[in-house]
């Protein structure tokens, strides 16, 4: 089996060598440039072509992990890593991947990277790893990774694909962290809980915890906030849907070109 497969592979690369050399020559000229065109690859997915609010890719994990900011941040970094390097790897191999099995090849590339992230997180940040549980593994089926491989990396040069991966990872991370901030601030009154720089923003201060805005009725700078209580709705998973819906609403009201006509 194996020799046949390798000769077949060698043949297919031989057939394509002509194409490949042209390609690599062109690549050498364009390698590592960072001009206007490349900058768009990073900035466009942040707002106007955001993976979550516009392309509707990768929503699953965006909703499940965002009740706190810190896990959202870790997730954003993990996904950016996976999108960037899977785009790079796929783009490097795009001329030798047979069309019929390309989905499986892409899945193996992604699964390998996700396994790396999973093992790294297990060592570096075990509490967050526990908190994210199956959602780390689910980066594999996060549509944003495969979506970008299919839509961009299979048809573009490695450096551009790498930048596109980073851009989309960041666009995804931006929404994730924004949702996390809203949910944690209004749901728990804190920010970055569970990390080294946990901040307590608003809530009733006691001896053990000190909040920036103290809402105990008797004392503190924010004593007029005595009526304030944390909104438990924000901790529920459904709140993520509402927060993202509001983001979509704001974004499409601001940029009416994005409105869904159908």
């Amino acid at each position, binding site marked *: 089996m194996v020799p046949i497969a390798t000769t077949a592979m060698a043949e297919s690369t031989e057939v394509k060598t002509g194409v490949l050399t042209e390609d690599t020559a062109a690549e050498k000229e364009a390698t590592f440039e960072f001009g206007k065109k490349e900058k768009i690859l990073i900035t466009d997915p942040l707002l106007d072509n955001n993976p979550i*609010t516009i392309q509707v890719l990768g929503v*699953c994990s965006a909703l499940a992990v965002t009740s706190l900011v810190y896990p959202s941040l870790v997730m954003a970094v993990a996904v950016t890593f996976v999108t960037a390097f899977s785009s790079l790897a796929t783009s490097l191999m795009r001329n030798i991947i047979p069309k019929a099995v390309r989905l499986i090849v892409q899945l*193996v590339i992604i*699964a390998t990277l996700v396994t790396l992230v999973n093992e790294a997180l297990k060592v570096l940040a075990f509490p967050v790893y526990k908190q994210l549980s*199956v959602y780390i593994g689910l980066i594999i089926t996060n*549509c944003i990774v495969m979506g970008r491989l299919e839509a961009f990396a299979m048809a573009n040069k490695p450096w551009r694909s790498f930048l596109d991966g980073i851009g989309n990872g960041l666009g995804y991370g931006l929404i994730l962290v924004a949702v996390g901030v809203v949910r944690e601030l209004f749901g728990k009154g804190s920010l970055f809980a569970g990390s080294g720089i946990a901040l307590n923003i608003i809530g009733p201060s006691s001896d053990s915890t000190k909040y920036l805005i103290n809402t105990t009725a008797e004392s503190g700078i924010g004593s007029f906030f005595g009526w304030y209580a944390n909104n438990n709705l924000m901790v*529920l998973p459904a709140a993520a849907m509402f927060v993202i*819906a509001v983001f979509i*609403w704001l974004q499409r009201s601001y940029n009416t070109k994005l409105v*869904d006509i159908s």
Partner: protein
Amino acid sequence: MGDFLNIFIKSAFIENMVLAYFLGMCSFLAVSKTLSTASGLGLAVIFVLGVTMPINWIINEYVLIPADLEFLRFILFIAVIASTVQLVEMVLEKFSPGLYAALGIFLPLITVNCAILGGSLFMVSREYNLSESVAFGLGGGFGWFLAIIALAAIRERIRYSNVPPALRGLGMAFLITGLMGIAFLSLTGIDPAVFAGWHPTPAE
């Protein structure tokens, strides 16, 4: 049998895949514009979840754990899912062209439906046995099916409503799913086993 039904009901209603864990959201939002396509995708999800879950259980229990290769779990699980979907597609095309025509376009989509891989990963982390994982697969798939046809039906109706332009389509889909999630929350805490008298006291 009690455990089987218990897990089926739990995974279908109380811990619904979409509304409680947000698995398979991408295709849930993208393919819920009309009722007929939504039910096609829903059926395909039930089928693939029910088939891949026991296969992945056997691989995990008899290959990965004895060989101490658990770090390969992601790659093997996704390979099983991708090849099962491919296989199912080919078998359906040959033996049941009608069903193939109905499900055909949705089958490839299912490979990257997080509900399928998520189901297998939950099965591992919750340490289900073989029959429990079959129940979890079928129940989870059924819950997913219910959720997507409910959303599709609501979206078909809401097309005639006067929604603010910026919220049309995607924005409303998010809001409706959120409300459905809250509605399903009212089922938390129900223990079907106690309710039906399979266990005399609540399981700890």
